């Protein structure tokens, strides 16, 4: 595609429900975040979810569960439960993962319960796709490479910039071909 835009120079106004339906890639979601004036590095994942009309609630979840995304039948709106006992970085990853389900799979299912992330298994399956989506919005490839070029190469430092765990960072580095950079 010939167009690479991160900033809108025009006043686009508020996004409508139909436009939200068109957000089905990490790039489109990040563009949406920029248009809404939200931080992308580190990504304001909760802010993005809320701008998409998802109600985010931090609550106690049964052991092992990281997050639940479901469509509330009464209000006809989407709700995201995040395990309040988890580390903030883990919670951000959970929200990003559920955003992946929201953008990619909500026409297939109306409830997603997620337990363990970073697990192996079949590529291209919905859970794997949601993980890939989460990594791509929390650690966009271009910004990741820019940081490496600008000399930020320490894993902890990079993880701090993106506010993710070092494990998530290493997996992302490997997936975008940066594993040779001391990562």
């Amino acid at each position, binding site marked *: 595609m010939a167009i690479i835009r991160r900033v809108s*120079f025009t006043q686009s106004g508020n996004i409508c429900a139909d436009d939200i339906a068109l957000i089905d890639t990490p790039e489109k979601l990040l563009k949406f975040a920029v248009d809404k004036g939200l931080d992308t590095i580190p990504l304001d994942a909760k802010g993005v979810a809320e701008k998409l009309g998802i109600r985010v609630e931090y609550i106690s979840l049964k052991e092992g569960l990281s997050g639940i995304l479901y469509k509330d039948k009464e209000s006809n709106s989407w709700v995201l439960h995040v395990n309040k006992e988890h580390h903030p970085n883990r919670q951000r990853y959970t929200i990003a993962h559920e955003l992946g389900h929201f953008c990619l799979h909500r026409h297939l299912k109306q409830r997603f319960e997620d337990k363990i992330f970073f697990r192996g298994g079949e590529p*291209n399956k919905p859970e794997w796709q949601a993980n890939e989506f989460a990594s791509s919005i929390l650690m966009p490839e271009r910004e990741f490479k820019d940081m490496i070029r600008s000399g930020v190469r320490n894993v902890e430092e990079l993880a701090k910039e993106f506010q993710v765990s070092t494990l998530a960072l290493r997996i992302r580095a490997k997936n975008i071909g940066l594993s040779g950079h001391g990562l």
Partner: protein
Amino acid sequence: MSDIIYVPIIKTSDAEIRGVENLSEDIKSKITPLFELTRSRKSKNIPRGDIIRRLNRLEEVYGTRQFILDLTADPESRNKQIEDLQDNSKGYKNWINFLDSIKEEFPEIIPVIQISDIGVDNAKDFYDRIKKQAERLNKNFNNIVYRFPLEYEDFKGDLTAVCQEMSGEKIICIIDAGFITQEKSSIYSTKAVSVIEELKDFPLGSIVLAATSFHKNPTEFGGEKYGEFRLEESLFYEKVNSKAKSDLIYGDYATINPMRSQQAGGRGWVPRIDMPTKDLIFYHRYRKSEIEASYAKAYTRVAKLVSNEHRYKVVKKQIGDCWGIEQIELAAEGYPQGLSPSFWISVRMNIHITLRISIL
């Protein structure tokens, strides 16, 4: 530009280029492909892939014919060379110089105008760079393409800038809806109709509407052994074309998902052959067993299942023996010419493009 009837959007991957290479001369002369330049496969010697390899291949396959050239924005398919070509400094000088440098090998090229806001922080600078690029493209080429995603909101600003530097008649506008699904089809078509309405402010040469509905992994949505999917792009085009009361040109991704697939790696694959028809694609798939332990035998079995279907025979009757049909026939007779998923992607594309031309 009324001679354009079909714009298949094709990445320069091995599979896609092979599908095009094996089209008949007649079909090649009837399509106007948009080649989206991607990096070559990564290897030990070329860890980031090389676009020169892709260009050489393109020259072999399509050199002197007319085609549209674009650069990929898919992060999985880009490398530093492509990022440099999309650099907007000095009016996209890298892209302009690159196009000049390949004009001898590709005399009939139609370039896509590049749009990037990286490193730009105000609207004036952003549009000045686009205008400078448009001015140079106007001098060097008879036509240019402006391609934008359906959800992109700033197309009017870009087009206003471009139209200050060249006659709108020279511009072929491609509205790219990307991956569409049956569930969202009506939303996409409503949006497309309103975009086309807004484009009426510009005296454009022609408008192409492109989309694809081919899943990244069809078996996730279809069955283990058999599946079928509607070709939403065809229905989408017909719907928008009639609603917008506009003479749109048909475009698609030639049955390829817009995002590059990651390699499954190590565990092998289940042989699958996809068969495009007018309105849908069906596939048969067969996991090689202990009795039929080779991929060759498994592909033969799958090809037999495909070629026994009535819908296959209808397509074969309509388009004759194109390369893709020949591959299925050979495989069904026990002589598959390719044993990788990539080869059978080429077959699917080849049949689809040939069939589209017979329909349009």
